[in-house]
C-alpha cells in the first residue's frame, strides 16, 4: 500500500515526532508507516486523516500486490 504521509507531513511542516504525538503512537511507528513497512489500523488511518484534515483515500492507495493473498 502506498501512502502520502511524508508529503502531507512536509506540507503541514510537521516532524515525525510531532505527528506521532498527535496520533498517539511512537515516532518510529510513523517512520515505519512512511517507509510502507507497516500498514496502520483503520483507527490510526482515520486519526492521520483527521490531523491532515483530509480523507483516508487521499493518504493511502492500494497497489496491485494488496489484492494478492
Amino acid at each position, binding site marked *: 500500500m502506498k501512502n502520502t504521509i511524508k508529503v502531507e507531513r512536509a506540507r503541514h511542516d510537521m516532524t515525525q515526532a510531532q505527528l506521532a504525538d498527535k496520533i498517539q*503512537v*511512537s515516532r518510529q*511507528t510513523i*517512520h515505519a508507516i512512511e517507509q510502507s513497512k507497516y500498514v*496502520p489500523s483503520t483507527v490510526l488511518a482515520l486519526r492521520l486523516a483527521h490531523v491532515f484534515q483530509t480523507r483516508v483515500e487521499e493518504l493511502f492507495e492500494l497497489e496491485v500486490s494488496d489484492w494478492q493473498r
Partner: protein
Amino acid sequence: MKSTLLLPEKLKIYGWILLIPSALLGLLYIIADWSLLSIPVGSQDGLFDAPGDLYDEIIGIGIIIGGLLVAFCKVPDEDEYITSLRLDSLVWSTYFNYALLVLAIAFLYNDGFWYVMIFNMFTVLVFYIIRFHWQLVKFRKSV
C-alpha cells in the same frame, strides 16, 4: 485502540525482580542440585501427593509469574506497531520452542529428555521475552 489483554506498565519491574532470582535459583537447582533453603511440607496422605519440598514449586511459580509480567506488561510507548511486534515474537517463539522440542523428542531419551521437559515448561515464555525485547531495541533504533 485498547489492548485489554496486556498488563499495566508499572508491574513490569516486579516481573524482573521475580524472574531473575527465580531463574538463577532454578538453574542452580536443576544443574548443580543446589538449594538456597528447604521448605519441607506435611504428610504424604491427602488428595494431592505431597511435594516433599516446596522449594522447587515456589521457584517454578516465580519464573512463570515473573515471566508473564515481563512478557505482557505494556511498554511505555506501547502502540499498535509494538502490538504487531508482540504477535511476531509470539509466533516465532512458538515455532522455535517446538522445533527444539521435536529435535529433543527425536534425539534425547531418559534423563536428557527429562531435563528438556523441565526447561520446556518455561522456554516459550523465555524465547518470547528475548525475541520481543530484541525486536523492540531494533524498532527504537530505527531512524
